[in-house]
């Protein structure tokens, strides 16, 4: 079972990203449960959502406290909350950022990092910083949990229409293509 935690800010579509990912995983025959965290979601406030998937049935409907993977679709939310809280050893971290790896601080437990300047891509595609679909591409590229084709199918089934659908498919594609994956060698050494 893989446990994934998605971080973002209210209004960016972290919950939607979780649901699209859940659909894509389901299409690939996985058992999956996505649970959003819940509260009074103000625009801009930090939010998280949780996703589990497995080859067998998932019974528990609980939050995730020790994720295998972090997907962070906002460049700055890490300053507001400790996104690395509780992560497992050798965890994967997929982050939207314009910075390069050396400029970033992160938990020592992280073994793989996928970086994508999703904000820039989003401005390019949408004219504003909607990063969720782009970062699903980044996730696929970094983790290999899910195929790009399954994500594309999930996006096509969702409520996007016409130009919006095309933008999101482009966003997914560019996220996938423009992500740089780093394997943190020293972790293994440590």
């Amino acid at each position, binding site marked *: 079972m893989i446990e994934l935690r998605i971080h973002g800010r209210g209004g960016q579509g972290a919950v939607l990203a979780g*649901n699209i990912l*859940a659909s894509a995983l*389901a299409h690939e025959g996985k*058992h999956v449960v*996505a649970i959003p965290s*819940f509260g*009074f979601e103000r625009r801009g406030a930090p939010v998280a959502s949780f996703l589990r998937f497995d080859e067998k049935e*998932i*019974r528990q409907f*609980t939050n995730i406290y020790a994720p295998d993977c972090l997907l962070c679709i906002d460049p700055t939310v890490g300053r507001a909350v400790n996104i690395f809280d509780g992560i497992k050893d050798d965890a994967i971290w997929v982050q939207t950022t314009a910075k390069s790896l050396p400029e970033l601080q992160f938990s020592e437990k992280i073994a793989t990092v996928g970086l994508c300047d999703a904000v820039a891509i989003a401005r390019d595609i949408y004219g504003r910083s909607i990063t969720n679909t782009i970062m699903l591409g980044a996730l696929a590229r970094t983790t290999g949990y899910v195929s790009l084709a399954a994500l594309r199918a999930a996006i096509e089934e969702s409520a996007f229409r016409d130009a919006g659908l095309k933008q999101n498919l482009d966003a997914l594609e560019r996220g996938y293509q423009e992500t740089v994956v780093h394997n943190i060698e020293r972790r293994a050494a440590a």
Partner: protein
Amino acid sequence: MNAVLQPKPNYIVCDGNEAAAWAVSLAQVDMVAVYPITPQSSLVEYLAKFIADGRLGAEIVDVEGEHSVLSVLQGATLAGARTYTASCGPGLAFMFEPYMRTPGMRLPMVMTIVTRDTLTPQSVWGGHQDAMSVREVGWIQIYCENLQEILDTTIMAYRIAEHHDVMLPVNVCHDGNYLSFATGRVELPDAAEVAAFLGQRDVNWHVALDPDRPMAVDPLTGGAGGPGPALFVRYRKGQCQGMQNSLAVIEEVHADWARRFGRHHAPLVEAYRMDDAELALVTLGSMTGAAKDAVDEARARGQKVGLAKVKTYRPFPAKKLAEILAPVKAVAVVDRSVSFGWNCGPLYQDTLAALQASNIPAMSCIGGLAGADITITHFARVIEACAELAEKRSPVDTLWLNEHD
């Protein structure tokens, strides 16, 4: 959202609220009345969208409050309509006056309670306190464990409610937050097969407001002496009989569902790994999945633990639960609500009543209030406490699971 109805594959990925909305669509209800409240709002939004899209041919009445929600549907049911709504928490409280009246009129309505803790302290998050507060009003109450059970049970609820031996309203309860918003894969039954399963609707054969069948509905009944109170007693007794009849009907309907759709859900109480169990957990709703995982882990450690999930809570399947729990040495009942009068959980009280002929010790655990998570770790604690109880066999205090999270 990302819900699509396609011939193949015949599943959708959706959250619990949407699963309920799909069930309502498949049941081809005539009327829904809605008023939004967290965490139910998206459920009625899905219904409104289904109706706006023409996917569900029902009348939707957007009213000014929950009190009217149920009142509109009472009128519609008396006119012959199959009806649906959903509410929770303060909305359910505001609805209480017509809610109280529905079972007495034997109206076979179905209402989801997307369970929410009650005020106060002010809270918008999950908990069973709302549904538990109305447990003695005369509605059948069925709790769901997961998304698939929400869809399947909501459809089955119509057949249970409309059964001529029952004719009572049904609450299908699913947990606010943990089921309402959790997304997963849900199998969609075929619409025509659902129609065949439910059969011809006939909801007002016994009481109607229909100019073609003039009658006085619910005239004053009772008074000091004379035939009035006797008539009232016969109505009340009949209503209680309808509740008892529903136990068999619920089993029969679940069996037929399994036959037709290949999915079996325990109708009254599910026994999980109880065969040689010495300790038993009793659970209700979405907490059960984590509890089952905790049972598996305990079993792996060598503890003989089992679990009884209560699905049908009202009428209370006392006989069934007593049978399942009969072999164990101790029972821990986990409630997501409290009984203020007894300083314990209400399901615990019911369990005690079911066990009254045995001398099995039981304890009350309360968790998951106001959106709190009950994890495998919490259940591990419960199992430890239960083991201790089995050993000591003396009364223990209520265990408040999330007090120090």
